[in-house]
């Protein structure tokens, strides 16, 4: 018999802490707003698009927008990408829900309650402010949004090109929020925080984004300013029709997502030869792989190892730019250890677009209001409550901690809304509801589960695109066509249902090994307990991914050993539970309760729940 001294070892895993199972749902954990991804994918699989849309909206507020342009931190996290090459097309499935949801979804949106007498001002109409409005209006708040531009949406409107995000989608989803009764003051730039404070609002939320594009102060920069553009300002001018043309040869400096939008927009304004100039090799690019792919599909050339040195002009007209040719030494861990200039190279250009980053700027906030700024001129904001150092003034989105993305702005908005609500009710901002969980068995019969447990080996579906010829004819031809019904039906089956958790009852286990033998990815081991380092060397299969937890059971009744599960690669096939003679394993659907403002409100505004 295997020895079974209890000895030193890990304590049993506390599965009552919602974080444990939440982490197993890699996509949901990675999503800043903790969208119930497997939940909505199952609804799509059942053809329940409207429910899928509403489940999304509960967390991320903008399913149609995000289904097209989300930064999708969920996809690199997706477990499917660890058991085979490509993650589930989570983001584009969100779009499927939005494309097919029935208009009747509007009937199920939260209704504005009778006014509670509290007035809240939101500065800027980007996704952060819009989320705050979305969360506070149903609680009876009187919400006013001040926006400098003539249209709401923030950078989603002014910078994300319409060939990625059509205006109708923005209009619809923003309209749903404003339609709950927000006062939207367009073309109304707030010039003074002091003045705004004087208007007697119960709370102020600053969602003004990070509006300043970074400069590149090099020789010749100001010799032909009409042909050197700041990326985000240029995109805004294009979006609002102030710029309609660009030269034939365009150089884009920088290789982040803004650069990708700049190069693709240039092609639509008449450029023929567009080069994106990158200082470093490809593995150091900031742009998401899919944005790079889309740009390269449009024949944009990405030139690596070129550091800008000077703008070259002749007779006051831009001719091109001079670059240092760089060489790098990279160590085993992929970090640059040395760099050298090995030469120089001139690239001709009619226009240059600088896309090297954004910064916050708050010229309109006076510095004597008890509202502290740090040495980088960034406001001091509490990362949990989003309150500034002046009670009643909150920040969120890019304005809070610098440029991020839409989904982070949304989550900031949710959290700020909770704080604003508690502030207005005179409650402690820090006394927030914790995350909660619900676990419910998925067992339907002997070997039947309430989810599609079989592993489908299908590969990731490819998003169909409009032909190159067609897409360049107009600025706003949406490039992605969306999944067809067949593609969506195949893609949903790739989801591993990571929210259907393996829940273990140690006292029932007779140590027959059936679960261990059947597990296709060798997640399970019965062994004597030990430290994590030790256990990881004694498991059925290599367990080198330390970002993924080990589940450790209580001591098993017969030998005192423990059941250990490496969560890393579990495909949630349920076979462990099917082969267990005593039902010691069960497959249980995990539902996360990530509280929003409405959950902090007193009854009758009960928490919204959408079943899956």
């Amino acid at each position, binding site marked *: 018999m295997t020895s079974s001294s209890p000895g030193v070892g890990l304590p049993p895993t506390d599965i009552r802490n919602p974080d444990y199972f939440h982490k197993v749902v890699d996509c949901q954990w990675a999503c800043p707003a903790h969208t119930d991804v497997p939940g909505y994918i199952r609804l799509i699989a059942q053809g329940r698009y409207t429910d899928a849309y509403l489940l999304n909206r509960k967390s991320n507020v903008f399913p149609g927008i995000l289904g097209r342009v989300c930064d999708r931190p969920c996809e690199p996290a997706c477990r499917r990408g660890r058991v085979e090459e490509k993650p589930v097309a989570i983001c584009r499935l969100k779009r499927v829900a939005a494309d097919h949801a029935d208009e009747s979804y509007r009937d199920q949106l939260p209704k504005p309650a009778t006014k509670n007498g509290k007035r809240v001002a939101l500065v800027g109409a980007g996704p952060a402010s819009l989320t705050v409005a979305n969360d506070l209006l149903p609680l009876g708040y009187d919400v006013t949004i001040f926006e400098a531009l003539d249209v709401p949406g923030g950078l989603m409107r002014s910078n994300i090109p319409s060939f990625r995000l059509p205006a109708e989608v923005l209009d619809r989803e923003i309209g749903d929020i404003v339609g709950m009764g927000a006062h939207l003051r367009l073309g109304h730039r707030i010039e003074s925080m002091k003045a705004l404070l004087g208007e007697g609002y119960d709370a102020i939320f600053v969602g003004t984004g990070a509006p300043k594009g970074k400069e590149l102060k090099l020789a010749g920069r100001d010799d032909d300013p009409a042909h050197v553009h700041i990326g985000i300002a240029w995109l805004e001018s294009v979006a609002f029709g102030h710029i309609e043309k660009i030269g034939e040869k365009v150089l884009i400096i920088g290789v982040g997502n803004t650069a990708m939008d700049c190069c693709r927009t240039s092609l639509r304004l008449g450029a023929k030869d567009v080069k994106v100039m990158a200082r470093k090799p490809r593995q150091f690019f900031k742009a998401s792989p899919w944005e790079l792919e889309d740009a390269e599909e449009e024949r944009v050339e990405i030139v690596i190892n070129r550091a800008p040195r000077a703008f070259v002009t002749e007779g006051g007209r831009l001719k091109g730019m001079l670059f240092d040719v760089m060489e790098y030494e990279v160590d085993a861990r992929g970090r640059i250890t040395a760099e050298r200039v090995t030469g120089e190279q001139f690239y001709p250009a009619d226009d240059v677009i600088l896309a090297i980053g954004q910064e916050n700027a708050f010229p309109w906030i006076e510095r004597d209001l008890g509202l502290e700024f740090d040495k980088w001129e960034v406001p001091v904001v509490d990362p949990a409550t989003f309150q500034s150092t002046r009670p009643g003034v909150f920040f969120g989105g890019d304005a809070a901690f610098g440029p991020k993305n839409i989904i982070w702005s949304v989550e900031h908005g949710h959290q700020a809304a909770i704080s604003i609500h508690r502030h207005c009710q005179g409650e402690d901002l820090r006394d927030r509801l914790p995350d909660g969980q619900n676990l419910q068995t998925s067992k339907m019969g002997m070997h039947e589960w309430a989810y599609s447990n079989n592993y489908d080996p299908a590969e990731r579906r490819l998003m169909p695109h409009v032909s190159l010829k067609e897409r360049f004819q107009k600025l706003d031809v949406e490039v992605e066509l969306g999944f067809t019904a067949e593609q969506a039906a195949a893609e949903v089956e790739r989801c591993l249902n990571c929210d259907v958790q393996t829940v273990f009852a140690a006292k029932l286990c007779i140590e027959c*090994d059936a679960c261990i033998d059947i597990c296709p990815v060798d997640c399970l081991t019965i062994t004597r307990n030990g430290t994590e380092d030790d256990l990881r060397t004694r498991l059925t299969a290599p367990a080198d991914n330390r970002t993924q937890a080990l589940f450790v059971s209580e001591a098993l009744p017969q030998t005192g050993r423990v059941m250990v599960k490496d969560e890393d690669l579990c495909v949630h096939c349920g076979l462990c539970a099917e082969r267990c003679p005593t039902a010691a394993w069960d497959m249980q659907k995990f539902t996360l309760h990530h509280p929003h403002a409405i959950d902090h409100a007193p009854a009758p505004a009960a928490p919204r729940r959408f079943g899956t």
Partner: protein
Amino acid sequence: MSYIAKPKVAHPQLPKNDLGFTVRDYEGAMSTLCAGCGHDSITSAIIQAAFEQSIPPHRLAKMSGIGCSSKTPAYFASASHGINTVHGRMPAVATGANAANPDLYYVGVSGDGDSLSIGLGQFLHAVRRNLNMVYVLENNGVYGLTKGQFSASADLGSKAKKGETNQQPPIDPVQTLVSLGATFVARSFSGDKEQLVPLIRAALAHRGFAFIDVISPCVTFNDHEGSTKSYTFTRKHAHVAMYADYVAPAKEIRAEYAAGAAMPVTLHDGSRIVLRKADGAYDPTDQAAAFSYLTKATAAGEIPTGLLYLKTGRPDMHELANTPDVPLATMAWEKVCPGSATLGKIQDRFR
């Protein structure tokens, strides 16, 4: 029974053996046995051992009779040969197959009913002729397939699921085989792969009849209180009498073995089995000592496990009968069938 088959998706870093196969390449069809059956665990141990031994799956021949246990060859090594014979008759068919082709690894899987009840005669004669094969007896004390009647290995006083008590003494296959002078006699437990896998590897390397009695609880008909073949009872009473570590041919024997208490035995292919006694045990190469130990320990209520008796160097069936040591199928036709004139000459010798 499950509705879905074990998916082909696998852990991306599964180790590969000398042939470049992963353990998944040794799997078979999805088991249709009851969930939790000990037999499935043994299947998995066989898969693991064949993988570790780097046996090309097509060089395995799976032999079995009838019973839940005898169904299990379908659940491992799909890419190998196999035959599911008549109840209790697997040893005869295995003998014939082996006679025709000595070049395969024969792995017999049988049950206590198949081997000790209906097939006892066949079984013991295969032992006598030292047929070169691994013989795994999946011992659950009942006829599982026919719904749990006592088999010939049921212990005196053991209780059936519905309460009746077994009145007849058991046939202990281990004692029986040691008394017959079988060349490799082991016992293990389906719930202890750490012991079972090396034993199967050693059995695969052994030339001659390598027998492993594996206590394999029948979760459906013989895992209750009062059973002496349940998971709980076996765990409580199993006692390692002889540790056996399998050492592959090229590997060094670890220094701690060389020190004394351990006894390395070299097999014909250069691999070794290192035997280590548990407290107060006996010399596992001494037949009388082994038999005496086993009878006493068993009478005292213990279930002795490990490699309990080992005799290398005894001729196997082919050596005894002086038959060709190449597969008949590869020999020239004139040699396999030398014609009626030669037959006549042979017959004349017996006139």
